[in-house]
């Protein structure tokens, strides 16, 4: 008997077929992985199961009984709980409020807060999900927030839990803890559906794996019978190079230098304190850290997007601090921003217009104040060709491309301007395996041509495979500077969590 049996699920959005006759059979009390690249239809399938989307065709059976789920409330009644990738939490409310809302314990017409807090506490002890029921969401860590999400589902007596890319925002230690929790939930009789595109995690935690590609099911395999290479091949549809080879390098002159940089972000009251580092020509310096520990402030401070308080930022001998963002880009800083859609692209612009952002006043794109349409189109088509941008011509809007291809548009724009320095922040976030491979290759290319690269990333594998050295940011300070070859993931994880590491 299957806990969940979805048959022939089809879901379209306009002309896009997000799910095309997908079957999914999940056994009771197993951890079942749905593996696929971004845009493969994993989340869509789960949103159909949870009643957030209405399916166009297909049937859903839970424990062999056909169900008709059209709203989340019905899914909840059927014992389905979903832990969303973007947490569905209200920052300003307490942990307890977030958990009980919609199923509140009552005393007369009042919400019985005492009982609510007690229930949450009992549940959190029962499953080993430690949280403070009285704390506000905005004051607790991301790992804690995720536990609140899981508690929300358990509070509603869910026996089928969907976890949508739950590890994306966690430190390695938090991931370990999550896996422990997942195993315990399985022991206690829950069925778990785990959505991911990360092969290593899939291999570690799951019992069976269903692979989706382009909205279609590729197959279901036993985790014990497969390996990362085969999985990657099924995911992408071709052979994939999982780790990049980077060439040896010798010591070279320092090209970029940051001395005692101080930045204050009043929004979250984070101070970047006395940050200093050097990058040599042809060197990749990785910046590791849990999100929100100063990466954004560093990125924006270096680009002149956020005022810096003191310090020096020196590129080939000249201080940049007085320069505007535009001037910094003009002297050759390529910027791959962490927030692609806010800083990198204008979603509603077509690729031609996106491609000239920042150089729209310059030759050859602009002549005597007029845009040279032919030249712009030519250039855009060159970049599309050279950077293997798929899914569109020069005339399509950026928003119609997949995340990976959008990122290639930015990469193409920035790297074709002969950069003197590359600041790449989260360059492969939300990007599929094939495009990751490509982006990594391009960045290493630039490195080999002698360009210094500052790589800010939350992906430890990415940092370790691309960087020559890694610095770790914790609460706005550099807590460690390490040789990338000598560092192991565990040590990096501890440093990111602010722990001391011996030696």
């Amino acid at each position, binding site marked *: 008997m299957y806990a969940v049996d979805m048959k022939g699920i089809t879901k379209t959005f306009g002309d896009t077929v997000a799910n095309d006759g997908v079957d999914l059979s999940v056994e009771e009390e197993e951890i079942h992985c749905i593996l696929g690249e971004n845009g493969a239809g994993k989340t869509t399938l789960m949103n159909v199961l949870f009643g957030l989307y209405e399916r166009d065709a297909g049937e859903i059976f839970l424990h062999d009984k056909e169900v008709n789920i059209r709203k*989340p409330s019905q899914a909840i009644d059927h014992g389905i709980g979903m832990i969303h990738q973007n947490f569905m939490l209200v920052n300003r409310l307490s942990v307890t409020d977030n958990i009980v809302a919609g*199923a509140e314990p009552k005393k007369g017409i009042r919400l019985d807060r005492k009982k609510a807090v007690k229930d949450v506490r009992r549940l959190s002890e029962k499953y080993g999900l430690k949280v403070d029921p009285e704390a506000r969401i905005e004051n607790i860590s991301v790992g804690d927030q995720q536990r609140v999400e899981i508690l929300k589902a358990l509070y509603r007596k869910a026996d089928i839990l969907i976890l949508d890319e739950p590890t994306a925002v966690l430190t390695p230690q938090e991931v370990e803890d999550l896996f422990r929790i997942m195993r315990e939930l399985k022991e206690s009789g829950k069925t778990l559906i785990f959505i991911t595109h990360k092969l290593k995690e899939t291999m570690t935690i799951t019992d069976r794996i269903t692979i989706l590609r382009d909205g279609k099911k590729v197959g279901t395999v036993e985790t014990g019978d497969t390996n990362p290479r085969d999985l990657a091949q099924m995911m992408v549809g071709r052979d994939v190079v999982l780790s990049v080879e980077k060439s040896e390098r010798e010591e070279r002159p320092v090209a970029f230098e940051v001395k005692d940089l101080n930045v204050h972000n009043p929004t979250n009251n984070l101070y970047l304190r006395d940050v200093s580092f050097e990058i040599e020509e042809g060197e990749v310096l990785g910046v590791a850290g849990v999100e929100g520990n100063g990466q954004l402030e560093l990125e924006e401070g270096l680009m002149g997007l956020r005022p810096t308080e003191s310090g020096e930022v020196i590129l080939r001998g000249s201080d940049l601090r007085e320069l505007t963002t535009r001037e910094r880009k003009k002297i050759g800083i390529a910027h791959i921003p962490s927030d692609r859609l806010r800083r990198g692209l204008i979603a509603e612009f077509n690729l031609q217009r996106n491609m000239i952002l920042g150089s729209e006043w310059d030759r050859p794109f602009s002549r005597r104040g007029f845009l040279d349409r032919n030249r712009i189109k030519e250039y855009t088509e060159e970049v599309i060709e050279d950077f293997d941008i798929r899914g569109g011509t020069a005339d399509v809007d950026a928003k119609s491309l997949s995340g990976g291809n959008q990122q290639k548009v930015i990469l193409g724009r920035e790297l074709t301007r002969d950069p003197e320095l590359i600041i790449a922040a989260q360059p492969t976030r939300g990007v599929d395996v094939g495009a990751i491979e490509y982006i990594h290759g391009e960045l290493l290319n630039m490195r080999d041509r002698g360009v210094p690269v500052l790589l800010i990333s939350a992906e430890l594998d990415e940092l370790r495979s691309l960087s020559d050295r890694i610095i770790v940011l914790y609460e706005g300070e550099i807590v460690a500077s390490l040789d990338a070859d000598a560092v192991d993931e565990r040590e990096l994880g501890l440093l990111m969590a602010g722990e001391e590491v011996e030696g």
Partner: protein
Amino acid sequence: MNDVLAAIFSINTLAAMIRMATPIALAAMGGTFSERSGVINIGLEGMILTGAFAGVAGSYYTGNPWVGVLFAVIFGSLVAGIFAVFTVKFKANHVVAGVGLNIFALGLTTWLMQVLWGGRGVSPNVNGLPRVSIPVLDKVPVVNKLITNQSPLVYIMFALIIGGWFLLFKTPLGLRIRMTGERPEAADTLGINVSRVKYFSVILSGALSGLGGAYLSLGYLNMFSRNMSAGRGYMALAANIFGQWNPLGGLGASFLFSFSEAVQLRLQSINLNIANELIQMIPYAITIIVLAGAVIKSRPPEALGEHYGTEE
């Protein structure tokens, strides 16, 4: 100078403050509910005006001012319901829909006045609400001067504000409203019916504003005049913001605004050798100053003004 201070801090000024704060505080709480559920409500002005008109019409045709009050609440809710259909169902821009509602309400009430009573300026006098006193409060010093012999709607307003605060912060429904305005997706995934919560909140805002309107026309002057709300809906919205989307805060802010209005009226009546125009500016200047300060520090519901739908 003593005259001025006496004018400002007299019992009479404070009693006037409470009177004038009543419609603003009611509508402000309406704004609080609407905005807590995520719907920006510029339309409070039109809802007050509709309520004021419906109140007089009800009293005119039945002779009973309480029927007028009921009419005010019903018609306030009705226009709010239309506003909710536009903003929630059809996902119209909240501000545009609200401004539209205000213009519609002004036009409609002016036209109806012409049709029903043949004049564009004012309605005939109707039976207003009687002044009442509350037996026990009668005997308490100071308080008796402030809130005795007031319109019953003043007492109802105080009760409703406390009830509204209780509803918003102490009941399951209140939690659902707050959650909807902060993060509708979160509410939806918890099985909360987002649209229903928004409809409820917006319609409640109409009922409260309508009641505020009834106070203007039946508790004050016993007639309706063109554009009678005269910007009180906007004051209410400001009071709601300054009161941090809390009915009690909104009441406090309404007191502040109406206090400055009351002072202004008192100052005009004593000869100060200052141009009256300058004195008349006081309430507006205070509103601007307070609001400029409040907007910087205030933290509106996170999804205020946004539309929610899972399949876009």
